[in-house]
């Protein structure tokens, strides 16, 4: 068969109907202030870690809500738990505790497996 050099590209859309939002559901329940984020980015701007790595707390929260697949463990280990983000959040989101809860949910899931 003649090879025209075409391939089928993988779908890059977030298929919201299909994504697994279990982490979001867990966080919503165990740290309800997670629901209050307005995506202003103040936390990211002030984040010591975000200035030197590709860690972005605001984006992480957004992606968790959409159920986007991420290496969560790898993401949250970049956070130094310094708490600067809590001080600046205009909505009083308990950002630091959300990181701790993400860790908790990953550990719980590991244990179940």
């Amino acid at each position, binding site marked *: 068969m003649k090879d025209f050099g075409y391939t089928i590209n993988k779908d890059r859309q977030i298929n919201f109907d299909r994504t697994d939002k279990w982490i979001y559901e867990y966080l919503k329940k165990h740290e309800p202030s997670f629901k209050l984020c307005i995506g*202003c980015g*103040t*936390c990211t701007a002030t984040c010591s870690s975000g200035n030197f790595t590709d860690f972005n707390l605001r984006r992480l929260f957004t992606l968790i809500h959409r159920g986007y697949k991420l290496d969560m463990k790898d993401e949250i280990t970049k956070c130094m738990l310094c708490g600067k983000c809590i001080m600046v959040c205009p909505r009083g989101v308990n950002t630091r505790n959300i990181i701790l809860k993400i860790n908790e949910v990953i550990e719980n899931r590991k244990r179940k497996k």
Partner: protein
Amino acid sequence: MSKNVIVIGGGIAGMESSAYLAAMGYNVTILEKEGKLGGHLLKWERLFPTKRHGKEVLEFLSQGISEHVSIIYHADIENIERKDQVFNVHLSKGTSLKADAVLIATGYETFDARKKEEYGYGIYDNVITSPDLEEIFLSGKGIRTASGKVPQRIGLVHCVGSRDEKAGNIYCSKVCCVTGVKQAIEIKEKLSQTEVYCFYMDMRMYGFHFEELYKEAQEKWGVYFIRGRLSESCENADGTIVVKVEDTLAGKPLKMTVDLLVLLVGFVPSEGTRKIGELLGLSFNSNRFIKSADEHTMSNVSSEPGIFMAGTCTSPRTIANTIMDARSAAATVASYLEGYNIEKRTIHRNLK
């Protein structure tokens, strides 16, 4: 004998409601704490969205202040008593006035930007507020940095003291987005070579012609808009200011050096609003403005009979909205004084 109404505050709301009450035949007395009528309008050079001069509106409002309106300047209210249907207002100079109704038009103050310490107002010389910039416009002096240079880059920061629970104000002040756009354009009109950046969370261009002004800022003046809320600013050795935000649309933290930083401060209830509300034993809403009997249907009605409100003592408002609210307050006061009591209608909750 025609009835007496005391209007507390001679800003936009106080002036326009007095004009309507006087036109309806009431004896109106405005108690103004300053030596002039006009309130904040005196401090605003041009107004959004048309960029017309504030003076024009003031002149219009002044035409309503006929001989049927008396004004007491530098009024300091000590106490207000009520006996049956009559109010007795005591001023600190020993004067007392009788009134059949009291209309509160004590308005707002701008948020004290010093409370947002991380933004550097009152600490760094090149951080100013939107009223400070307006003062520069009014004075006719050029826009200069603290050391007298023409700024090459100016940043405007939205939502200073608004939409911020850390500052104690969760509400949106409604006017600062469009004020920012207006001021950005005015900067460009005066300093065409200066780059202007607005740092915003949402561009709240809800009013008629606001969106057009926003488009004009982009199209005609080349103003830039970056979506991210200011986290902090710091000062370089040369006095320039470094701002830190997340450029949320790019998904990356961003720092930028500006020569001048303008903080678009929001509304808080004025000292007078708090004081008069407390003197009269009125209820306040969760944002510390005076509470309206109902937000949809009775914005001018207080928790006490015979006491009414007009303008920004109940919530942030634009000038257009304040003028409408003032007229509506005049109608409400009149219906009370004539015994129609339509302000006593009740609105039912949970009607099925």
